[in-house]
C-alpha cells in the first residue's frame, strides 16, 4: 500500500509524464483504490484496454471522461468535442489541449491537472501498437499538465514499443497483497454494505450486514482468508467468496434472534446481541469445511455466488447437530435425517461415518458438481455405439499408428499379442542431445484418419461386444457369417456408424481436422474434441461401462491415472 500512497501523493504534487504500475496479482483492486484516493483532487479518467479496442473509442473515452461528459441519447450521443477529435492522433491532441484550456478557464483559481489511468495496456499494444509511444509522450506532445498511468499485470519490458520510442516510465511495483490488506479491504466493504440503505431493512431484525455484526464478520474473514490465502491473494476474489458464504454463515444467529423476537410477542424490544464466543466457535466449526468447497467452486467460477449459496444452505438438522439451533426451534430429527443426510455429511465431515455414508457423500458431491457443469455424464447421454466410437477415437488419438497391429492384430495362431511393457519415460527422458520430444499425451490428442477409427472400432466391437450384436440382430439367419469377424465387419460399416460419427462431430466430441468440403484425396481426419472426450478419466468410465479393458489398450500408459 505504501507504493500506492506514493503514486497518490506523486499525482497530487507534481506527476511525471508517465508512470507505470506493475501489479501482478490484483490490478483492478489497485486501480480502484487509486481512483478512490484521487477522486476529487485531480481530473482523472480510467480507460480499459479491452473496451477501447479502436483508436476512436480510446480518444472518445479519454475526452469524455476527462470532461466528465456523458453522451446522452437525447442529444444524439454526441461526444464532448464539437469538431471531430477522434480521426487521428493529432486531432485528439488538439482536442485535449482545447479541453485543458476550457477546464482552466472554468476554474481559474487553481491549475487543472489531468491524469489518464489505463488498465490492461498490453491490449493496446496488441491492437494499436503504434499508439502506445505517443500515448506515453502525451504530456510532451500536448504541453499541458498531464500524466499517463499504466496499470498492468505485465512488466513494462513486455509492453515497451520498439526503438525506444516511448519515454521511460517512473516504475512503481505493487507488492503482493498481504493478509492484513485483504482483511482490511473486506471489512471496509462490509462497512460500505452496512451503510447502504437498500440493505437496511426497516424491521427490527438485523440484516446480515448489520453494523453490529462487524466484529463477527472480522472473525469470519480471518478464517476465510486463512483458507483462501494459499491459493489466491486477489482481494476481489476473496470478497466474492465471502459474499457467497457470509449470509449463510450468520443466518443461524439471525434466525435465533428472529425467534426471540417472535417469542417476545412484540411486547418488549429484544435487543440484538452479538454472538458469543462459543457460538462463534460452533459456527466456525460448522462452516469451515464449506469454505474450501466454496473456494474450489467459486474461484474458477464453476458456478456463481448466488447459486452456490442457494445450493449450500445448511439445513436445520445439521445445524442442530452442531448445536446451532439457538432458538426454540421445533425439531424432529428422525424425519429429516434421511432427506438431508448428504448435505449434513457434506457440511460436518468431522463426525464418524460409515463407509456407505462416505460413498453417499461422494455421490452427492459428484452430482452437485455435474449439475454445475450442466451436463450429464457421457455414459448416460450417448447411445452405446457412440460410446464405442468415442473409446475407439480416444485410443486412435493417443496410440501411435505402429502400435495398432500389436494391440489389435490377431494372427492365425490366435495368440494375442500384448503391448510391450511401456518404458517409464518421464524419469529417464534425458536427451543425448537437443530437446526431448514431448510425449503425445501431454500434447493432447493427435489426428487420425477415419479408416483407422473404423478399424479400431471393429476390433473393439469384435472383442467386447460380439454377443450384444447377436442379440440385437433381428434376423441372424439371413446372412451367413462364416469367417471370424465378418459379422463385426458388417456391423461396423453400416451407415449408422457414419451417421453417429457425423453426429459426434457436430457435438464437437470429435473434431474434424480436414476441411469438410474436401471429398477426394486424403481421407477425412478426426481427433478427440477438447475437454471431456480427450480426458483419460472420462473415457475410462465409458470403457468400464462397455467392458473394454482400456488400460491394456493404451500404448504408453505409464503415467495414466
Amino acid at each position, binding site marked *: 500500500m505504501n507504493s500506492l500512497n*506514493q503514486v497518490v*501523493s*506523486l499525482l497530487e*504534487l*507534481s506527476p511525471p509524464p508517465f508512470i507505470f504500475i506493475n501489479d*501482478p*496479482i490484483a490490478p483492478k483492486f489497485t486501480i480502484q483504490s487509486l481512483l478512490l484516493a484521487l477522486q476529487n483532487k485531480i481530473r482523472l479518467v480510467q480507460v480499459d484496454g479491452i473496451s477501447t479496442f479502436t483508436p476512436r473509442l480510446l480518444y472518445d473515452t479519454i475526452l469524455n471522461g476527462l470532461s466528465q461528459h456523458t453522451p446522452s441519447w437525447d442529444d444524439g450521443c454526441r461526444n464532448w468535442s464539437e*469538431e*471531430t477529435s477522434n*480521426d487521428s*492522433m*493529432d486531432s485528439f*491532441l*488538439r482536442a485535449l489541449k482545447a479541453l485543458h484550456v476550457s477546464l482552466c478557464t472554468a476554474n481559474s483559481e487553481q491549475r487543472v491537472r489531468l491524469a489518464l489511468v489505463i488498465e490492461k495496456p*498490453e491490449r493496446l499494444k496488441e491492437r494499436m501498437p*503504434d499508439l502506445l*509511444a*505517443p500515448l506515453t*509522450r502525451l504530456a*510532451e*506532445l500536448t504541453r499541458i499538465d498531464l500524466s499517463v498511468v499504466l496499470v498492468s*499485470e*505485465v*512488466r513494462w*519490458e*513486455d509492453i515497451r514499443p520498439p526503438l*525506444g*520510442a516511448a*519515454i*521511460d516510465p*517512473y*516504475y512503481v*511495483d505493487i*507488492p*503482493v497483497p498481504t493478509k492484513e490488506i485483504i482483511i482490511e479491504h473486506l471489512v471496509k466493504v462490509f462497512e460500505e454494505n452496512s451503510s447502504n440503505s437498500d440493505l437496511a431493512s426497516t424491521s427490527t431484525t438485523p440484516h446480515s450486514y448489520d453494523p453490529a455484526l462487524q466484529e463477527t464478520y472480522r472473525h469470519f474473514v480471518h478464517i476465510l482468508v486463512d483458507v483462501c*490465502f*494459499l*491459493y*489466491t491473494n486477489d482481494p476481489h476474489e476473496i470478497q466474492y467468496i465471502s459474499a457467497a458464504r457470509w449470509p449463510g454463515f450468520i443466518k443461524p444467529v439471525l434466525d435465533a434472534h428472529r425467534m426471540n423476537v417472535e417469542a417476545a410477542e412484540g411486547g418488549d424490544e429484544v435487543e440484538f446481541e452479538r454472538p458469543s464466543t462459543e457460538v462463534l466457535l460452533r459456527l466456525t466449526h460448522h462452516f469451515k469445511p464449506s469454505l*474450501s468447497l466454496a473456494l*474450489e*467452486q467459486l*474461484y*474458477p467460477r*464453476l458456478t456463481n455466488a448466488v447459486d452456490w449459496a442457494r445450493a449450500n444452505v445448511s439445513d436445520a438438522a445439521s445445524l442442530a447437530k452442531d448445536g446451532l439451533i439457538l432458538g426454540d426451534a421445533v425439531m424432529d430429527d428422525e424425519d429429516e435425517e434421511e432427506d438431508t443426510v448428504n448435505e449434513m455429511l457434506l457440511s460436518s465431515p468431522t463426525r464418524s461415518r460409515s463407509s456407505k455414508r462416505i460413498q453417499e457423500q461422494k455421490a452427492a458431491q459428484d452430482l452437485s458438481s455435474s449439475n454445475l457443469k450442466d451436463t450429464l455424464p457421457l455414459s448416460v447421454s450417448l447411445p452405446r455405439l457412440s460410446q464405442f466410437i468415442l473409446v475407439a477415437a480416444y485410443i486412435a488419438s493417443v496410440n501411435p499408428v505402429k502400435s495398432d497391429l500389436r494391440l489389435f492384430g490377431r494372427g492365425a495362431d490366435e495368440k494375442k499379442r500384448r503391448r510391450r511393457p511401456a518404458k517409464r519415460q*518421464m524419469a529417464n*527422458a*534425458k536427451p543425448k542431445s537437443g*530437446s*526431448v520430444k*514431448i510425449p503425445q*499425451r*501431454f*500434447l*493432447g490428442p493427435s489426428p487420425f484418419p477415419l479408416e483407422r477409427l473404423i478399424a479400431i472400432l471393429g476390433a473393439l466391437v469384435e472383442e467386447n461386444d460380439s454377443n450384444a450384436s447377436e442379440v440385437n440382430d433381428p434376423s441372424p439367419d439371413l446372412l451367413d457369417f462364416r469367417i471370424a469377424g465378418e459379422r463385426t465387419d458388417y456391423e461396423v460399416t453400416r451407415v449408422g456408424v457414419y451417421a453417429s460419427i457425423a453426429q459426434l462431430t457436430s457435438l464437437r466430441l470429435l*473434431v474434424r*481436422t480436414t476441411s469438410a468440403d474436401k471429398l477426394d484425396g486424403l481421407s477425412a481426419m478426426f481427433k478427440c474434441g*477438447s*475437454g471431456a472426450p480427450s480426458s483419460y478419466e472420462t473415457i475410462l468410465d465409458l470403457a468400464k461401462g462397455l467392458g473394454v479393458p482400456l488400460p491394456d489398450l493404451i500404448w504408453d500408459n505409464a*503415467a495414466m491415472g
Partner: protein
Amino acid sequence: MVLKRKASSNAIQDSPSKRTRSRRAPLSPSLDTESPRKSRVAKRSVPVDDPSDDSSGDELDIINHDIPATPSRRSKRLVEVVVSTPSRSRKPAFPKPKTVQLVDALPPIPQPSPSKKTRIVTYGKRGSADCSVSSSPQKKNVQLKTPSLTPPPVGPPLIPVASPQRSPSRRALKGSLPQHLHDSLTSQKRAVLHALQQPPIVPSADDSEYSTNEVATQQLNGLLDGTVTRGEGNSCLLLGPRGSGKTQAIELCISNLKETPIVVRLSGLVQTNDRLAMREISRQLSAQVSPALLPEEIRGAANDESLKDDDNPFLDAPVEIVELSVPTAHMHSLIACIPTLGRPTIVILDAVDLFTNHPRQSLLYSLLDTVQSCRAGGGNKGMAVIGVTTRMDTLICLEKRVKSRFSGRMIRTSASIKASQAKKISRAMLIPTGETDGDQEFSAMWNESVDEILADPKITRILEEACSITGDIRSLARLFMSPVLNLKPASPWLTASQLEISAEAQRIRPEFPYLHTLNYPSLCLLLAFYQAENDGYPAITFEMLYEYVRNAIRVSAVAPVQLHGNSIGMTFEHLISAQIFVSLSGPSMNVGKNFFKYRCSVNREDVKKSVEKNGHSSLTKFLRRATGSH
C-alpha cells in the same frame, strides 16, 4: 558567499572532532565586526547558569521549535528553563541591538545591516546545529561557546573549525519535523518534484572547455539567429541519445531569439503520413499567423471544416471525417509559400527518422527544397528546418534527391556526464531556485540536508554508477523521485539507503521483483517448469506441469494443496496473464486449453532464488528434487 564556502567545507571534511569550536565557525567569517565580540567578552562575566545571555536564550528558543522530542530529559528541562526567560532576557538585549542582530539572528527582528541571504543561511545553520547540541548537556556548551569567541577568527583555522559542524547537524536531521514546518515540507516536496520533471540547466564544471551540449546549443543558436535576423534558409539534424537534452536545447535557443518566429512542431510519432503532417502544419500556421497573411491555399486547408459547413447547406450533419486532402502534387507549392509569411519560420521535426518512411519522402523534400531555395532579401523571411532524432543513421535514410537538398549540418548532443556534474545537477534539482513559499527556516535546513547527503560516499557511488550506464538526466531524476516522495514529517530528510532502494527499483530493475512473494501454487508451477526443463523439455503444456506438481506432492507427502485441478489451474491462468508463462502459439479452436504449449519467461536462477527466499519447506523439498533429478 557563505553558502558556497559552507558547501565546500562540508564536502571535504568529515571528522566530527571539535564540536566546541565549530558552533561559532560559520558565523565568524561573515560577521567579524568588532563590536559583537566586544559585547560578548563583556558578557562573559555573566554567570553561566543565568540564561539572560540573550544569544543562547534565543537560540534555545529556536531549539524548542525545532525539536519537540529532545533526547534527554535533562536538556529538555534546560530548554524549558530557558524558554521561560526570553521576555526577561530580551529586554536587556535591546539597548545593544547590534549584538542581537549579529549573534542570534532572530528572524522576526527587522535587521538592516547584513544581507538577507547571509543572515538566513547563518541562522539556519545555527538553528540546526543548536538542535543537535541540545542533546548534550547544555551547560557545558554554553560555557565552551563563549570562550571560543574570544580569539579573533583567522582564515586558515576556519576550515577545520567548520568541519565538525556536520556531525551534530546530522544528528539533528534525524529527528522528526516540528508541527509548524509540515506545510513547508509539502511545498518543498512539490517544488523538488517539479524540478525533477524539468531539470534545470547546469553549466559544466570547468570553464576551460565547453561541454558537447553547450557547443550544440551555441551552434543551434547561431543557426537560428541567421534564420531569424538574416533571413537565411537553414536545415540541420540534431542528433543525440534519449534524454540528452535535444529538445531542451531547441527550446532554449528559440526562447533566446530576438524576434519570435513562427514555430511549427511536428512529430513523426503522431503525424504518421504526409497528409496528417500537412494538415498539422496548416493548423499551426493559421494559429500563429494572422489569417490575412496566410496564402489562400493554406488558409483554405486549415479552415476546411468551417468552409465545408458554409459551402454546403445541404449537409446538416458533418459527413464522417473530412480528411484534409492536400494532393501531394500541391504540397510542394504550399510549403514553398511558407517563407513569404510575415515572420521567419522554424519547423521542428521530432523523430525525423519516422518521416523518412513516408512515401517518396515528399514532405521532407518539400521542406528542404524550400529551405535551400530561400534567398535572403526580396521580402522573404528565413526558414529553418530542424530534424531531431536519436537515430544516428538518419542521414543514410534520406533519399538522394532529399539528401542533396539537405545542408548536411549535424549537431550532436551527448548524454555523458561526469559524476561531479551529476552531483551538481542533482543538487540543482533538489534545491530548486525560484519560488520558495516554504518557511525560510525549513528551506535552510533542507539545503543543508541536501548538501550533506550529496557528500555521502554512498550517493557518490550511486551517481557514478548512474553516469556510467547512461547520462540521461531524466533517469537520474527518477532516482530521486521515490526518496523525495517518501519524506514524511517523521523522517523529513533524504537518506542514502532510500536512494539505493530507489536505484534498484528504477534503474537496475530485477526481472520479477515479486517472485518470491507469489503464492504456493504459482511457485509449484514454476518449479515444475524448472524440473521439466531439467528433463530437457523446451516447452510445456499445462497437463505436463500438472503431472509434475502432482508427482512432487505425492512424493513429498505433504499435501497442503488439494490438487483438484481447479485451484492450480486458476493460478496458471494468473501466471499467463502476468506473462510469466508465454504461449507459443495463438489460440485455436481445435486444441484444448490444457494442451497449449508455453514457455516460461522467468530465469531458472530466479526461480531457484525466489524459492529459497520464500522458504516454504515443501517447496524447498521440491526444489531439491528438481535439482537432484538433474
